[in-house]
């Protein structure tokens, strides 16, 4: 049945899609009168040329790791969770509540508490669309989109009316206490004598995100539950016949997905801003879609894609700083990646399959 060898499926198809997206991005840069080669050079020096650049690249990558994993887990269950944005917003609320209400003695305990709160809030925000999909058949894509907007309204209300410190005009919470400050990569690497930029926001959360990658891999490919999730995603009818409950799998997959998206908040809210602001997520929930598509929903692929997008984000910020190319270039690249690796997948796949079929006939 498989027309293409596995390596072509896993490496070649995403690579060609990526190259197509890159070519079009280069054309866009040319069209606005800039030099693509110089732009790439600037992005590489800006994002990877210093520990400061790396610190930002890894910080962004941490966000995208969480949201990318979130989208991936849902994809494996055949669900398209477009609500990572809202779930990450609610995760931020969880982190803020945990950090402000509980007097943590040490950052390690605070990190555990905040991670749990973030996961819980994110999962709770995914629970309603999941329940409606499982029990009432409401399309999860539409409900999660709606929940993104409802989350934005809710967060706006909470920040403006409930959590804003008295006398402050800014729709944001108070600063978190000093005890919940997470060690940055500068602090961590400093202990083993490696000097790393002090200004960059990358922090211990990056390591947690890597652990999350491994855990998601274990869950999906080494446990019963993961097997059930994947079989449900491949064929609902077959899974039902095998005694897998669609309601349970839809709920569990979406709860895990929402929790992962919510956990992004320990990076951006607790690790970087150290307070909850209105636009804390900054579209990372949507970038998770691009990351999951590019990473073929495999944790290792998601890891690579998240680093790439972290690089694009930091590189794009540098570009905006040094050239007249606005940051929105990254949004275009992101759109092209989603388009080619997601929607136009068959455009790349069909000719390749034909090619491999021809080669096979040639051998025989």
């Amino acid at each position, binding site marked *: 049945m498989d027309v293409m060898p596995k390596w072509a499926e896993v490496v070649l198809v995403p690579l060609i899609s990526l190259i197509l997206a890159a070519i079009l991005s280069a054309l866009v840069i040319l069209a*606005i009168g800039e030099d693509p080669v110089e732009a790439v050079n600037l992005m590489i020096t800006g994002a990877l040329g210093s520990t400061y650049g790396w610190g930002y690249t890894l910080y962004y990558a941490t966000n995208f790791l969480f949201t990318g994993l979130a989208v991936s887990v849902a994809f494996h269950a055949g669900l398209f969770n477009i609500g990572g944005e809202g779930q990450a917003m609610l995760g931020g609320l969880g982190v803020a509540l945990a950090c402000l209400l509980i007097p943590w003695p040490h950052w390690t305990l605070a990190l555990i508490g905040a991670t749990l709160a973030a996961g819980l809030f994110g999962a709770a925000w995914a629970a309603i669309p999941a329940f409606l999909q499982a029990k009432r058949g409401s399309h999860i894509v*539409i409900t999660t989109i709606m*929940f993104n907007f409802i989350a934005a309204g809710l967060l706006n*209300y909470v920040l403006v009316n409930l959590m804003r410190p008295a006398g402050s005009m800014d729709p944001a919470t108070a600063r978190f206490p000093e005890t919940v400050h997470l060690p940055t990569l500068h602090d961590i690497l400093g202990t083993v004598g490696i000097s790393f930029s002090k200004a960059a926001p990358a922090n211990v959360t990056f390591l947690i995100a890597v652990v999350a990658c491994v855990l998601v891999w274990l869950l999906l490919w080494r446990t019963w539950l993961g097997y059930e999730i994947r079989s449900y995603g491949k064929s609902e009818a077959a899974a039902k016949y095998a005694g897998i409950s669609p309601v349970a799998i839809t709920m569990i997959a979406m709860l895990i997905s929402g929790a992962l998206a919510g956990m992004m908040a320990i990076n951006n809210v607790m690790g970087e801003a150290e307070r909850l602001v209105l636009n804390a997520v900054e579209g990372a929930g949507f970038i998770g879609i691009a990351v999951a598509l590019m990473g073929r929903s495999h944790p290792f692929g998601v890891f690579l894609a998240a680093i790439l997008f972290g690089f694009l984000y930091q590189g794009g910020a540098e570009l905006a700083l040094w050239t007249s190319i606005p940051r929105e*270039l990254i949004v*275009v690249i992101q759109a092209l990646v989603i*388009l080619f690796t*997601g929607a136009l997948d068959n*455009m790349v796949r069909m000719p390749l399959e034909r090619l491999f079929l021809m080669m096979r006939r040639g051998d025989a």
Partner: protein
Amino acid sequence: MDFLTLIQLLDSTVRLATPLLLACLAGLFSERAGIFDIGLEGKMLAAAFFSAAVAALSGSVWVGLLAGIGASVALSLLHGLASITFRGNQLISGVAINFLAAGLTVLIAQDWFSQGGRTPSLMGGARFEPVSLPFAEALSAVPFLGPVYSELISGHSVLVYLAFATVPMTWWLLYRTRFGLRLRAVGENPAAVDTAGVSVIGLRYAAVIICGVLCGIAGAYLSTALQAGFVKDMSAGRGFIALAALIFAKWRPWYALWATLLFGLFGALETRPDVIQSLIGIKVQGQLLAALPYIMTVIILAGFVGKAIPPRAGGEPYVKER
């Protein structure tokens, strides 16, 4: 609340409902033909930019309108290419189109005008001016009906009247023509349409192009009539509210009119918190009003209050041979 406030409120309801209505009807054509479209937002945004930009450069709003429609149809064709020709995931394609529009509009705006992602303010012939209906001035003295006619019905841009006229036209096209019957059939059971010897691909492309045209008008309205120029992300979630309205309207044209008017009213009330307070005596949070269309849609989707059943073949690419 006095009579004049009510008229003002309804007047801004009409103005805010117009882009929603056009985008909602756009989505209706696409989804009735079985192509889910969450890219309404992106198409509106692209049209808003290109109509404002071309109107600013050419000085003619009509040329701008054509450019906006062109940009929106181009994105529609991309959606068609991905979801009809290459049988890709329609939802993912929609997401990509939204981002493509969000990024490209700012990028091109910066390149063309260097004003931080906006177009110059439109003036004179580069904007859709309000149209005074005949005798609006003369009849305004007539009690009750006078103000209703001269303030509420008269004095909108031509696109508003076009939007409202699109409702009966859509109804007629969908329910009274052969094309409409086939279009609805292709969203329910494409195999049957194919068996009858009618091109599924052709019908779906036609639906997607109509969707593009309507989204284009909606976007042009935003930047050349409702406001005078394009600013970054100016569609501001309207494409998604239109999507919500479409579900709320159960994919029917007349219901779409009422749904978008209702959501337009929420939008109008958001800017007038004093009116709500005087009306029901309690202060309603603006954030709640902003989220209300989404909350109501989720409730409708949940099927607790009336059930919204989407076209049966929606979201599924049609494969001829099985």
